[in-house]
């Protein structure tokens, strides 16, 4: 290997540190207008009238438009398509787009949009999932407010619990999490002479945006071109909602025949863009005295908000993983995505799993305590390994480094030296250590099997420089760099001469979304495939030059050291890469190719929830060490060791960056990120009120990479992006318990939550002492 497993410098870092990288708000088109969105000021209601007179009188305003001006379909194309680009007769959440205003400056557009008067007749709203599930609740969706329900049934759940010696059950809840990508949402739409539209912007999934723009304009897809611009973070928050922003800017550009830019303010972004779903998880485990888990039942409820958007898919992933990374013979999972009159929730790194993992990993600790088995031993006893079965009855057949992950993080965290049971912890500020483990299905799996493919186009140009087109996006995670490394390795070309372009939908076929830790695997393999086709032409030329005649079945294997080609066994007779490219061009040898990759087949029954849900899994475990101030309820995270079996680290430095960043997002989720809603309206739509981690909060983070190669992955790689977000919050909650004896049932565990737990704990202890005294 020449450049695989090497921490080469990111190939987009230079322009980013120099400030020359162009994000969408850095683009200006000639004759450009600016759009702003008029949003619902009520959580649920009927639109009675829209008065645009005052707004239209403002100098510079070019128009105000509603759903009536949509030439195509007024529905954001996604799973169900229930979310309109612009509200028609009703609004279902505060902040829902109602009308669009366009003006000659951003200030004018935003100011004038506030002058559009919309009159509503308020309707009864529902903000809580349990309320929404009641028979007499106001109905937002269907006759029961359930967007989607999944059942997973394995074995005999009643028997599983009957056979158990010990049973534990609890209810865990989590709040929203906001992505807080540093670059807000934004798009520029540029009308094309043929009646089509080019749209540029910050996004994760250009092909979703492609579908959306074609739909709202009612034009064929070959007249729509979507180009991703340098994207300032996404984390799932730019998966589906950029379709709304792009649809709006395209509509305005179409109606005004001028380029239109829409950039969201931070507050607008908070109010209207997707979030991590709040959750309620009712979970129960049963186990034998020896620690073998016999049964797990889960009721997993996601608060989806007013429209279904990606909720059915998030629900599916969360449900499939919700029993935990354990081999359990009897499982029953019921999963519900429930409609409420709040902002629609969608994709966020981890995609339904952090919620479920907080619940199952907290309860596993409780089970361990009840069994008087160490939390590590209980996990080791039940964890998935080669030959064991997931909750969906899928046999793990390949690439499973789970044991090594757990062993390594435990060792690096010095668990044995730090662990003490809670009752032995003393002092005002107490130390605690906790662990959590998870598995993660790479890619879309059976839930999105039709989208799980990727294309590429690779060409070696005359000077030897390589241009690569892919369909997955760079949003900070390092994909351009990793794909460059894969192309360099497969072609035998120097890494510095590879350029991977940001996606443009006219260059490569629909490669699915850039989500689910799928892009190294999907785009990596699609590029590798194209490079291997080119390599066959190169190898033939090398062999021809060495005198191996055509028809002589080309004996000899051509190798590369990254600068030169040579025939195996004759490393001294080299031909320089650039010389070879010249020869190929002179001999009219094709040095370009398309590439394609589809994931392995999956096989899943939606009726029983049984089958091969994903083709491969990553495995992770995190140990957290915290100190808890028992007076104030403040938690200080001291150290996090987070380990991940990702198959192969193409670029270890970038992998460590993914782990460190994910761990801090998860620490925020666990402790400080607390979105407050009142009557469906977000009360803290800014960084001053919604507290994401700052440099002051950073503990010692120890990233651990385990490489259990995946035979179908590019050079053995599986994927990484999501995994670091899944376990740390649960590990922190377990560490808080270990320090204090206070079991955290809801996230975030703010000082208020912890001081309330302390009060309950003290009350419980007094009660126990009194009862024992009475007995005595």
């Amino acid at each position, binding site marked *: 290997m020449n450049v695989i497993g090497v*921490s080469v*410098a*990111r190939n*987009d*870092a*230079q*322009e*980013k*540190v*120099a*400030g*020359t*990288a*162009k*994000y969408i*708000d*850095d683009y200006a088109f000639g004759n450009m207008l600016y759009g702003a969105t008029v949003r619902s000021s009520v959580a649920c209601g009927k639109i009675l009238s829209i008065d645009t007179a005052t707004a239209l009188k403002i100098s510079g305003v070019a128009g105000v438009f509603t759903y009536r001006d949509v030439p195509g379909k007024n529905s954001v194309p996604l799973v169900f398509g229930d979310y309109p680009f612009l509200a028609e007769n009703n609004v279902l959440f505060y902040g829902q787009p109602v009308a669009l205003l366009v003006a000659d400056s951003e200030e004018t557009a935003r100011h004038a949009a506030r002058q559009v008067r919309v009159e509503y007749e308020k309707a009864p709203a529902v903000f809580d999932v349990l309320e929404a599930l009641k028979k007499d609740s106001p109905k937002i969706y269907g006759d029961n407010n359930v967007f989607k329900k999944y059942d997973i049934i394995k074995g005999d759940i009643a028997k599983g619990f009957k056979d158990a010696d010990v049973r534990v059950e609890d209810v865990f809840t989590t709040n929203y999490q906001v*992505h*807080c*990508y*540093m*670059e*807000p949402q934004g798009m520029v739409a540029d009308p094309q002479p043929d009646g089509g539209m080019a749209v540029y912007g910050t996004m994760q999934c250009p092909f979703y945006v492609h579908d959306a723009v074609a739909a709202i304009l009612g034009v064929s897809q070959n007249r729509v071109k979507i180009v991703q611009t*340098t*994207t*300032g*973070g*996404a*984390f799932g928050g730019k998966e589906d909602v950029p379709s709304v922003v792009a649809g709006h800017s395209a509509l305005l550009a179409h109606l005004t025949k001028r380029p239109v830019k829409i950039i969201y*303010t*931070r507050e607008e972004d908070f109010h209207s863009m997707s979030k991590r779903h709040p959750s309620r998880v009712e979970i129960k485990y049963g186990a034998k005295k020896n620690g073998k888990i016999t049964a797990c039942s889960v009721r997993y409820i996601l608060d989806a908000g007013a429209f279904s958007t990606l909720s059915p898919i998030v629900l599916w992933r969360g449900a499939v993983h919700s029993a935990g990374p354990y081999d359990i013979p009897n499982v029953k999972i019921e999963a519900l995505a429930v409609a409420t009159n709040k902002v629609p929730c969608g994709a966020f790194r981890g995609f339904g799993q952090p919620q479920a993992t907080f619940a199952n990993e907290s309860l596993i600790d409780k089970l361990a305590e009840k069994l008087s088995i160490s939390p590590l031993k209980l996990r080791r006893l039940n964890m998935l390994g080669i030959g064991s079965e997931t909750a969906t009855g899928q046999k793990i057949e390949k690439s499973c480094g789970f044991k090594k992950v757990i062993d390594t993080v435990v060792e690096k965290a010095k668990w044995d030296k730090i662990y003490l049971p809670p009752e032995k912890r003393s002092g005002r500020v107490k130390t605690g250590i906790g662990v959590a483990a998870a598995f993660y299905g790479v890619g879309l799996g059976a839930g999105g099997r039709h989208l799980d493919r990727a294309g590429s186009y690779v060409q070696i140009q005359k000077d030897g420089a390589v241009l690569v087109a892919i369909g997955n996006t760079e*949003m*900070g*995670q*390092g994909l351009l760099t990793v794909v460059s490394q894969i192309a360099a390795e497969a072609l035998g070309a120097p890494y510095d001469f590879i350029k991977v372009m940001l996606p443009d939908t006219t260059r490569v076929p629909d490669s699915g979304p850039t989500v689910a830790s799928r892009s190294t695997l999907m785009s990596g393999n699609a590029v590798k495939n194209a490079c291997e086709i080119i390599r066959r032409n190169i190898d033939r030329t090398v062999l021809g030059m060495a005198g191996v005649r055509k028809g002589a079945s080309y004996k000899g294997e051509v190798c590369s050291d990254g600068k030169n080609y040579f025939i195996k066994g004759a490393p001294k007779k080299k031909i320089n890469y650039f010389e070879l490219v010249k020869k190929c061009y002179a001999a009219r040898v094709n040095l370009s190719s398309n590439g394609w990759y589809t994931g392995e087949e999956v096989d899943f029954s939606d009726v029983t929830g049984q089958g091969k849900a994903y083709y491969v899994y990553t495995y992770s475990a995190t140990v957290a060490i915290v100190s808890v101030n028992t007076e104030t309820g403040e938690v200080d995270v001291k150290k996090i060791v987070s380990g991940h079996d990702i198959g192969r680290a193409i670029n270890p*430095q*970038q992998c*460590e*960056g993914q782990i*460190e*960043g*994910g*761990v*801090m*997002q998860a620490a925020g989720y666990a402790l400080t990120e607390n979105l407050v809603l009142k009557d469906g309206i977000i009360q803290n739509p*800014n*960084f*001053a009120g919604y507290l*994401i*981690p*700052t*440099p*002051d909060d*950073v503990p010692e*983070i120890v990233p651990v990479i385990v490489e259990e190669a995946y035979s179908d992955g590019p050079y053995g790689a599986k994927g990484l992006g999501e995994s670091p977000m899944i376990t740390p919050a649960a590990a922190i909650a377990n560490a808080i318990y270990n320090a204090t004896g206070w079991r955290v049932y809801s996230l975030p565990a703010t000082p208020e939550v912890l001081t309330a737990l302390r009060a309950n704990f003290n009350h419980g202890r007094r009660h126990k002492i009194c009862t024992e005294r009475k007995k005595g």
Partner: protein
Amino acid sequence: MAQKINFRVNGVRRTVEIEGWEKLIDVLREKLELTGTKRGCEDLTCGTCVVVVDGVAKRSCSLAATKLENTEVLTIEGLSSGGNLHPIQKALIDAGAVQCGYCTPGIVMELYALFTKNPNASEEEIIESLSHHLCRCTGYEAIMEGAKLAQSYLKTAKPS
């Protein structure tokens, strides 16, 4: 009411017509087309818009343009000369501190102001100055490493 201000940006004397409500960031991005300075929050909380004004790191989203008369403003565009990266920029790359890059220009300028004033800033002082900056990608570890690496690069860099 429009008014004219004279100030220096990246060493070049500029005269710009401004409106009373405009902030430094508006002047830089819209009037001078220096888009390396980013908008992230507009309420003084994220630090993506930090530039150096008379040697001090300032959030350009809150600095009134009317107060710029005779000031010396340095933006990210003024830092790398002739295509050569400043040691702080190089250090952030080497430490793996760049992911999406949106917070990067602000952090570079913050560190520039800090290290110009105090090349031997302690870890606490670095954290203190960076605490005005949000980064959602890196978890800050690599940024801290990059800052320390920058200090060593600055010490070994030849004076230009």
